[in-house]
């Protein structure tokens, strides 16, 4: 069972969280994005075997959406951050 380091609450049990999927996706710019860009955003995934930046919602805790970098092969977690903050070693979201 995963122990997820909430940047606000500290390490907490997986059962307090809901998974939110790939955190590298950015909602396309509604003013300019093509249909393909929307389809890619909604449907396509890198689905890496290895480190994966992902969202988790601390639904039974502080209710923050957080970002976590977790290895999909080993489940090891190497970093976590608030949703809007960059993960260690990652450029911030524009």
């Amino acid at each position, binding site marked *: 069972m995963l122990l997820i380091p909430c940047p*606000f*609450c*500290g390490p*907490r*049990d997986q*059962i*307090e969280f809901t998974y939110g999927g790939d955190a590298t996706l950015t909602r396309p710019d509604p003013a300019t994005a093509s249909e393909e860009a929307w389809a890619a955003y909604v449907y396509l995934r890198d689905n890496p075997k290895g480190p994966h930046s992902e969202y988790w919602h601390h*639904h*039974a*805790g*502080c*209710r*923050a959406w957080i970002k976590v970098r977790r290895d999909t092969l080993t489940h090891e977690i190497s970093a976590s951050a*608030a949703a809007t903050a960059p993960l260690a070693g990652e450029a911030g979201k524009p």
Partner: protein
Amino acid sequence: MVERRSALEGAARPGDFGTPAAGGPGVILGERRSLAIVQVAALGERDAAVRGGIAAGCGVAPAAEASRAARGGGTAVLWSGPGRWLVVAAEQPGSDLAARLEAALATAPAVVTDLGHARTVLRVSGPSARDLLAKGCPLDLHLRTFPVDACAHSLLGHAGTLIHAVDAVPSFDLYLARSYARSAWEWIEESAAEYGCRVVAPADLTGSG
């Protein structure tokens, strides 16, 4: 003030049950009623003004760190998430906590939401209180890691709960969603039976610690 009807009306009956240890019941359980509970949510990152407003509105400044409660004069301010606090005080006739906070925070970037009827608050204490809670709560409630005035949202079985350590007896206040309260109560009663459990009347638990 018109009397409120608790979600546990009829379910929580004072008395002893279960198999107590030699020294008496391991768990003492009761509902804290007639509480005013108000959420203050800061908008945006800068929450200094909001903290100040809370202090002005209820007389207690929020603790500086996350997962901590601050208490004074029967009022508690519980951290409940980034930029969010619950202010809890005994309801007093003629004094509306939400309105006071609303006024104190009128110019601050904050939203005040009354949750006084949304939560059922239980107090669980006694030598076996931690063992009991461990049956449903994944938090480490040991005094080293969860000292007095630590507070955290977590789970108790299927029910979400905010847990506040109120003393070293130990005693914990549990803030449960009202609609889950009765199921949670039944769960607690059944789980506490092996330690011996004393249910006390709500009147014995007013005040905020």
